[in-house]
């Protein structure tokens, strides 16, 4: 089953958010982290990326966000945006947001202040000195707070939140930057079962208006959210498809069980 069958084509409004990673290779000091990797994402898609450690998942994200430059290959966002020509800051401007594994929220600021910092707005010094929240900004923050389940806790210092809540706050902050593509790296590591369920709901709610690429190890979680899964191995795409297809693919079984 190819990716072309995955989703019904969306309207032109949503043509951004599509990701085209083609034949990308990255090596570090002789070690090939990514090896001729090709991956396509449709706009609004929720994709899970799995694979053993060292498969290249984090490196792939680094390439997309501009943290690492590939030695070969192309990375396009939408039809026309060549990500390899842009700096990290520019890639963030263009609408790609990333959430790292370790939650890094600003612990000495309140939830609300964290969210306010993440709003898509003029980031220059003069602007922030005078910044006042507009009505629409306030609304968006409220929406985000509700979505991430922290609506009642907005005045608390972010440092006092539980681990799961910090992760959600970070997702919320990512949301407020109005990304077209969200890269989420191992969101449920260290969460309780209840939190994991909530996170699954959250991510599913996020997809559609934007594309979401999730890297995870927790198979339960992946199964609960994934329509489409990509398996990476040694820097290359090993298999793609639905969860059922993946789990019955002999190559995947060999890689996961054969080590």
């Amino acid at each position, binding site marked *: 089953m190819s990716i072309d069958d995955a989703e019904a084509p969306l309207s032109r409004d949503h043509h951004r958010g599509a990701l085209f990673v083609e034949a990308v290779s990255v090596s570090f000091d002789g070690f090939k982290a990514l090896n001729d990797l090709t991956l396509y994402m449709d706009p609004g898609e929720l994709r899970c990326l799995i694979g053993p450690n060292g498969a290249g998942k984090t490196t792939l994200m680094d390439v997309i966000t501009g943290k690492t430059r590939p030695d070969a290959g192309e990375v396009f966002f939408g039809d026309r945006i060549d990500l390899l020509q842009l700096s990290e800051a520019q890639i963030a401007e263009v609408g790609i947001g990333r959430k790292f594994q370790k939650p890094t929220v600003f*612990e000495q600021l309140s939830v609300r202040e964290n969210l306010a910092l993440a709003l898509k707005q003029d980031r220059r*010094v003069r602007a922030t000195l005078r910044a006042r929240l507009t009505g629409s900004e306030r609304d968006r923050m409220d929406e985000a707070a509700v979505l991430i389940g922290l609506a009642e806790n907005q005045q608390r210092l972010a440092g006092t939140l539980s681990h799961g809540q910090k992760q959600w706050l970070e997702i919320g902050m990512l949301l407020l930057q109005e990304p077209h593509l969200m890269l989420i790296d191992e969101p449920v590591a260290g969460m309780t079962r209840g939190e994991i369920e909530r996170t699954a709901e959250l991510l599913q709610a996020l997809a559609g208006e934007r594309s979401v690429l999730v890297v995870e190890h927790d198979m339960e979680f992946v199964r609960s959210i994934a329509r489409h899964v990509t398996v990476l191995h040694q820097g290359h795409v090993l298999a793609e498809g639905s969860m059922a297809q993946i789990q019955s693919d002999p190559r995947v079984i060999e890689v996961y069980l054969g080590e």
Partner: protein
Amino acid sequence: MGLPTWRQEPGGFALLVVLAIVAVLVPLLNLALPVDSALHVPNYTVTLLGKYLCYALAAVALDLVWGYCGILSLGHGAFFALGGYAMGMYLMRQIGERGVYGNALLPDFMVFLNWQELPWYWQGFNHFPFALLMVVLVPGALAFAFGYLAFRSRVSGVYLSIITQALTFALMLAFFRNDMGFGGNNGLTDFKELLGFDLQAPTTRAGLFVASALALAGGYLLARAVVRSRAGHVLIAVRDAESRSRFLGYRVEHYKLAVFVLSAVLTGIAGALYVPQVGIINPGEFAPLNSIEMVVWVALGGRGTLYGAALGAGVVNYLKTVLTGALPEVWLFFLGGLFMLVTVALPLGLVGLRARRRSVA
């Protein structure tokens, strides 16, 4: 926005109230009462308290960069001294013919060095507005140049602190030289008047005192406005998680530079108010030890609170006055011990002792 309230920000509120009281009471008790009255505040006390106020302003400025942005500058004394020198140059020009050598144009030390004319960088300092401009511009420009180079190259942490030390040390060496034209190791002194007011007169002293109190209040409110704004939150974000802030799209270097320059300007103003009150400015103000003492004021008071810095400045300098008067040998031991105490036992400073901690894991 507005002013701090007793309920929300007791510290800030207390500071402003104390300042208001002091600004009224001290001049009153000095000028209105006869000298032998029990409640009379002597002239030197007015000057001493004025000094404390200037130091407190410098401390608040340092708290801005350190407490809120994490930039530990060990060279802020340089900005204090530069502001002081700018004011000192104006005051020197005001001496005119009343100097020892009676030269209307050249200050005494220039006559002594056989200089024939006023160097170009002294031009304009006979005008008060120009001097005020320089008070703001010179420290600001230095901070800008230095900060631009340092922050752009992502120098941070201890490396930055060391370099700020080296900066003030180099400036000290430079200003000690007689041929720099700033009075050499004697500095600038023997001031007569400011804007026509005799610097020795009690009314002038009181006026300067009130000006210092106003400057402190103004500086505090300005700093407070900055830290409460979105920009202030960015500063805190930069302090705690710099790469995350950068990742969020904030130009960290710009923010650091902006707050560094603002802090330098405020410190320069503090220096400019300090000099007419103590009557002298010399290169010793650039000494690295001075800058580091400023840090202990903020650390002891409680960084990241602004009013804590002012408190710390007052407490430490008061102790310094007392100890250097009574047991001069002990002062340095005490200061050293203070450093050790504050870092090991009092990370949140005096303010942290009583505040209910909004503690974080």
